[in-house]
């Protein structure tokens, strides 16, 4: 029933006479409104300046204003410090000295932090540190969203307290059962950790510490032990070398822990008159081979025979060996080595103890000063025999507990199935891991450990060198470092920091500040007696049987041993030789490819496709391995990179390539392959591999000509006819030159002799400038975003006119001959970034003046102004401009670090993240030079030479890049710009670049 309630407003309503109520109902106001008074006054109204129109305007305006004001922009909260930490000033970077050692790479580094976040890794130059691409990229691995974010027990989350409780009660039971406890780690060069393990033994009982390197140097370690009685690696100082013979050793890459580039470059400075002569004998085209003065291709088995042959030629012995294609050359080499005296050195990467002994014996016979067998290195300690024994014991049920740390055997062992199978017989398995990787998946406990940028640590990578790792950020996740956990388990309440400090004798604060300390030590008197019969060693080597096709595994400068596979910077870093990213593949010589009927085809969109094969080595088959045809690959050999084919703990995008570790211990000589008929897509960023006859792009001269000929003979300057006179091309100009003689004027010099192509600068540029990662699909479309690239050119072999006639080659063949690489080409690298032309072609064509020239020589990009016509990129003769084809940040299509709340933390706040549709390019790190200028201004001083830096030159280990102010006539770069080796890329175009190249000098034998 509808309610019929009535509410009375007042008692008046009860009355019959309701005039008041009527009034109230009719009128809003009881009293008459004096409108007449207000509007009747015509005079006042007419004199009023507010007309009806104005009134409406005001109403309209205030409505619009109120509406607009209520539209609020998105609010982003920045939370200020309540109590500001003393050392943090927002906007200012702090640097901390630290050390990276992940079992594979070692580097003394400086960590740049901004507002408490590490954002970049630089080399600690005071510690003579150097960084490679992986070290540079390691900062991004800190912000990896796929990291293990807390401890897990059988896949379930568990608290650290429970972990401690469970394990501390379980461990004594294991010991009580009479089974062994094994600690399996990667190379551990930390003195404190080693001491801690000993204390652990004191508390619980014997522990078997097995050291395992994914990329093993076991042969070299065993050989050194046999020769010198100590299981370590010798150190090499290539700056002292006069003649280097490397047999398969990629010492500019990861050979025996790397870090040899700086010394190598030091020994090759043409202006000092001394330049080492470097000969490489190898099967794969390695970075080192690419830098060599002379390169011979040899199959892996032939390398062994060549080594013995070299030993014979040097010592005059006559150890029986097999013939190789280079026997004559070996004799010449031996002469050359002997003539070089103590400056001669032979290094090899043959994974055979006897071969390594042979190499050490050669160096000893030569009396080489380059090799240091006293101050040995601890950078690799893995022992393959121990690992094999461990698996056997695990299978036999002798192992009660297995603790792994900093190792991923399920991924890296060639017999990982056996390991996984044997693991089932282990009662307690504990993995200390940063990711839920292949191994952690199979262990009972997966205990999350922090990244090295969140941890304390110490490293004794070489005798007498003590380095410290210090945390630069609070752990992002629920992690606890391995050492802290061990301390906990032995009932020690100290932190590992206290523990380290207590172990250290010396000035602790200074050492933490510096990141390293040299510790005086006296080598122990050696009582070792050598019992090596070199003839027996040679005889053992002579039993090696060559295969028809042989496999040589290698590591890429990008991926290394594969532990950073989830790092998009490294995945997208092109291989310096093949220029392919996001992949591993079989490298094969053109001759073999023809024989197997395998091809590489460039598609119409510029993407490279290759045939897939099923590869069988020693009975183990990997299906669908792509083949990349590699000039310079030894005929009869194939190469395959380790570190790819990860399956656990990485994003789907990063699961690229195949796992070549399954072949690590297999016989390399038993190789067969079968074409599958399917096609694989490579992500190769360079399609043309030779200079196509344009030799003035990358100028090269032999050391002899450099020393003896006039510079214009080998550093040709283009000349134009101008006013009926021949004048240098760069003097002819349409434009009026701006006076750049006052203020700063930046130049960057790049020495093509010193550049090894290691690509550390490429990653450094990524990190400094927030360069986006675009993924394999886009790289295949030639849309990489690299601001800095390293062009790699192969030499071509074009027959002379007469030879062509004899072979019946037509003009067209001659023409296209220039486009094809020789079978064993010489290689040259050329880093190319924006050349910052003083007369920049890009600047004149931009309709909106979004790119223009700075007073200090930089060609600048105003991203906000750019409308994206791409005209500038078309008109750039160096092709260094990169267009944002899509939005590369916060876009699910590009699920890399910029689409990730953790990954975004690595972004440099000084550099803007570019939006879709704008052009970007190298800025010559203007944010860095401006900071330097401001700082000097505040301090009221002049800027010293060397203070101005860019990310690339800072990352350069070999000193190939020199940056500075050419208006400072005393500066190094000012002198280099005038050097007789200096030239501008494409000088005849008249762009007047601010990047100067130095002609490459090769120590070619006449």
């Amino acid at each position, binding site marked *: 029933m509808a309610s019929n309630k009535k509410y009375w407003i007042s008692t008046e309503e009860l009355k019959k006479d309701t005039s008041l109520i009527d009034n109230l109902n009719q009128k809003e106001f009881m009293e008459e409104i004096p409108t007449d008074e207000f509007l009747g006054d015509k005079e006042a109204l007419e004199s009023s300046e507010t007309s009806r129109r104005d009134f409406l305007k005001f109403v309209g305006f205030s409505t619009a204003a109120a509406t607009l004001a209520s539209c609020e922009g998105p609010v982003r909260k920045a939370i200020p410090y309540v109590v500001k930490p003393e050392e943090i000033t927002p906007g200012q970077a702090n640097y901390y000295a630290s050390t990276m050692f992940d079992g594979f790479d070692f580097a003394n580094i400086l960590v740049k932090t901004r507002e408490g976040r590490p954002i970049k890794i630089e080399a600690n130059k005071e510690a003579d540190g150097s960084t490679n691409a992986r070290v540079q990229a390691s900062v991004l691995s800190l912000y990896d969203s796929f990291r293990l974010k807390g401890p897990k027990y059988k896949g379930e989350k568990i608290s650290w307290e429970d972990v401690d409780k469970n394990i501390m009660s379980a461990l004594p039971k294991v010991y009580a059962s009479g089974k062994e406890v094994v600690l399996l780690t990667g190379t551990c060069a930390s003195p404190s950790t080693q001491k801690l393990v000993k204390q652990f033994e004191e508390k619980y009982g014997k522990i078997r510490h097995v050291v395992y390197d994914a990329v093993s140097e076991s042969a070299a370690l065993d050989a050194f032990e046999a020769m010198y009685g100590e299981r370590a690696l010798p150190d090499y100082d290539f700056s002292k070398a006069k003649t280097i013979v490397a047999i398969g050793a990629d010492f500019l890459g990861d050979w025996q822990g790397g870090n040899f580039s700086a010394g190598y470059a030091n020994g090759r400075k043409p202006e000092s008159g001394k330049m080492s002569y470097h000969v490489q004998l190898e099967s794969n085209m390695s970075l080192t081979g690419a830098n060599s003065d002379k390169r011979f291709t040899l199959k892996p088995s032939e390398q062994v025979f060549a080594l013995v042959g070299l030993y014979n030629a040097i010592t005059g012995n006559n150890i029986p060996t097999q013939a190789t294609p280079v026997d004559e050359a070996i004799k010449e080499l031996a002469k050359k080595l002997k003539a070089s005296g103590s400056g001669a050195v032979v290094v090899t990467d043959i994974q055979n103890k006897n071969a390594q002994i042979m190499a050490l014996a050669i160096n000893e016979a030569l009396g080489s000063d380059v090799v240091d067998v006293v101050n040995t290195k601890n950078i690799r300690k893995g022992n393959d025999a121990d690992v094999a024994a461990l698996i056997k014991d695990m299978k036999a049920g002798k192992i009660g507990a297995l603790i792994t740390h900093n190792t991923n055997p399920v991924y890296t062992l060639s017999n990982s199935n056996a390991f996984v199978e044997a693991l089932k017989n282990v009662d307690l398995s504990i993995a200390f891991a940063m990711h839920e990787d292949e191994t952690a998946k199979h262990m009972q406990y997966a205990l999350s450990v922090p990244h090295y940028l969140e941890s304390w640590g110490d490293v004794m990578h070489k005798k007498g060198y003590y380095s410290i790792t210090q945390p630069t950020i609070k752990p992002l996740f629920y992690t606890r470092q391995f050492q802290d956990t061990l301390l906990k388990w032995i009932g020690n309440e100290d932190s590992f920091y206290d523990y380290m400090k207590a172990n250290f004798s010396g000035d602790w604060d200074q050492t933490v500040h510096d990141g390293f300390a040299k510790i005086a030590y006296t080598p122990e008197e050696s009582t070792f007696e050598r019992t090596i019969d070199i003839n027996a060693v040679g005889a053992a080597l002579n039993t090696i049987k060559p295969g028809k096709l042989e496999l040589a595994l290698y590591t890429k400068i990008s991926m290394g041993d594969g532990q950073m596979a989830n790092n998009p910077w490294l995945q997208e870093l092109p291989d310096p030789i093949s220029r392919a990213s996001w992949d591993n593949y079989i490298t094969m010589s053109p001759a073999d490819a023809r024989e197997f009927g395998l091809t590489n085809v460039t598609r119409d969109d510029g993407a490279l496709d290759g045939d897939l094969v099923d590869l069988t080595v020693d009975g183990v088959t990997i299906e669908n391995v792509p083949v990349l045809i590699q000039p310079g690959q030894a005929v009869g050999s194939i190469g395959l990179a380790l570190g790819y084919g990860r399956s656990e703990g990485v994003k789907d995008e990063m699961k690229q390539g195949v796992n070549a570790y399954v072949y690590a211990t297999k016989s390399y000589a038993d190789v067969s392959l079968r074409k599958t008929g399917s096609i694989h897509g490579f992500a190769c960023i360079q399609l043309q591999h030779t200079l*196509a006859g344009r030799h003035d792009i990358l100028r090269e001269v032999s050391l002899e000509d450099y020393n003896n000929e006039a510079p214009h003979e080998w550093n040709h300057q283009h000349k134009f006819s101008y006013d009926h006179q021949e004048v240098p091309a760069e003097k002819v100009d349409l434009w009026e030159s701006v006076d750049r003689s006052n203020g700063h004027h930046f130049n960057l010099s790049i020495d093509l002799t010193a550049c090894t192509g290691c690509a550390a600068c490429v990653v450094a540029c990524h990190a400094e400038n927030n360069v986006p990662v675009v993924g394999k699909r886009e790289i295949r479309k030639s849309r990489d975003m690299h601001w800095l690239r390293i062009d790699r050119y192969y030499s071509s072999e074009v027959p002379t006119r007469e030879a062509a006639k004899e072979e019946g080659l037509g003009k067209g063949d001659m023409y296209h001959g220039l486009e094809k690489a020789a079978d064993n080409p010489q290689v040259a690298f050329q880093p190319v970034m924006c050349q910052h032309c003083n007369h920049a072609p890009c600047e004149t064509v931009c309709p909106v003046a979004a790119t223009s020239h700075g007073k200090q020589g930089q060609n600048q990009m105003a991203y906000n102004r750019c409308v994206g016509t791409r005209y500038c990129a078309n008109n750039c003769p*160096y092709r260094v401009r990169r267009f944002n084809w899509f939005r590369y940040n916060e876009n699910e299509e590009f699920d890399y670090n910029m689409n990730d709340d953790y990954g975004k933390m690595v972004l440099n706040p000084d550099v803007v993240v570019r939006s879709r*549709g704008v052009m970007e390019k190298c800025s010559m790190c203007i944010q860095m030079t401006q900071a330097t200028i401001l700082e000097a201004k505040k301090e009221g001083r002049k800027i010293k030479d060397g203070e101005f830096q860019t990310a690339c030159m800072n990352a350069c280990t070999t000193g190939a890049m020199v940056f500075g102010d050419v208006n400072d006539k005393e500066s190094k770069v000012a002198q280099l710009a005038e050097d007789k080796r200096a030239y501008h890329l494409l000088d005849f175009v008249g762009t007047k670049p601010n990047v100067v190249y130095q002609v490459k000098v090769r120590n070619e034998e006449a």
Partner: protein
Amino acid sequence: MSHYESPYREPLILGKKSYHDISVDIARPIETRANKNWWIAFTIALLAFLWGIGAITYTIATGIGTWGLNKNIGWAWDITNFVWWVGIGHAGTLISAVLLLFRQEWRMAINRSAEAMTIFAVFQAGLFPLIHMGRIWDGYFTLPIPNQFGSLWVNFNSPLLWDVFAISTYLSVSLVFWWTGLLPDFAMIRDRAIRPFQKKIYSLLSFGWTGRAKDWQRFEEVSLVLAGLATPLVLSVHTIVSMDFATSINPGWHSTIFPPYFVAGAIFSGFAMVQTLLGIMRKVTHLENYITRKHIENMNMVILLTGGIVATAYLTEFFIGWYTGSPYENYTYMSVGAATGPYWWAFWSLILFNIIIPQFLWFKKVRTSFIWSFVISIAINIGMWFERFDIIAIVLSKGHLPSSWGRFEPTFVDIGIFIGTLGFFFVLFLLYARTFPVIAQAEVKTILKKTGQYHKNLRDTSHE
């Protein structure tokens, strides 16, 4: 009767036509209903247009990455299509302005449609510089308008900015010229219109044309002035378009002969397109008596001449590139490298369609054949598209540094946008053919008694 004309000169209007016949013939498509063929053609064109709109929307929403471009090839189909459409837009003004100044009376039958084609083609052309921008929403940065961005101003050094002015000037002058010519014809339609709505519309379109002698006098004066204004534009627009390339530094682009070579090419392609369109239109709208063999032949002769200039330019480019001896010239679009490289098909298409096929026009039989003219005009349209594609894509694919050589493949979006502009063009043209007087009847009437076949015959027989 107007002045005497030689009996050897072929008549420009065939059949026995009176002034009224002309009015009826021209007004017929407007006053009758569209036939089935028109609807089929319109539907196809509309679908293509809609597809194009879809492709453009997708591009703007997602990014230029939906096209096939890459770091080395920053332009390909976009600017190819732009230059192609601008080139097509050249015949109209040439026919109506230059031929008016030269008092070529044969232009009268074709200038209306040629100019319509020009304007519609310039619409298509103008689209590409807009949508090829990475940030089209900031496109107004290219206009020199007072702004609050500080001291920012457009860069007058940039040929792209010159394009902005050249194209917009050309479009506005062409439009005004075209409309002026249309006034008496619209008035004729208006006067014939029966339905009030139609009458209203055409009286609006005719700007109140009355047909007084003063009207005609002013009409003639304005036409002459506009023709004088438009004539330099014929040369300037494509000169400036060519400077997009000529002022750059890429081998193959950086060439001083580009301006005249591009202008000749534009007229070449424009006439070919007129030929194509009229070939269809004269059949469909039964205007065979107005668009005669003589018209076709005259246009073919212009094609032959401009085609010759273009071929000479190609050979010059080829020769000079080779003669420099510079290895950087080995791979330009006119080089051995291009002829034997990955884009050999594009190179040889250009040679075949633009140099070899037009040579058949030397034969009078071919030149005066409707069907062969049509076929050859299609070939030239294709050839001229390839010319621009070759200049842009081949040159960019092999720049100075071999490390940065690349390849280009169009995506469905590239193709979709091109087809969309073709659709848009034909949508406009088909609508035009049904609503506009497609022949300048007022002008044609002025020559009826002078060069009309019937009147000529009358005159000739009377002389005998």
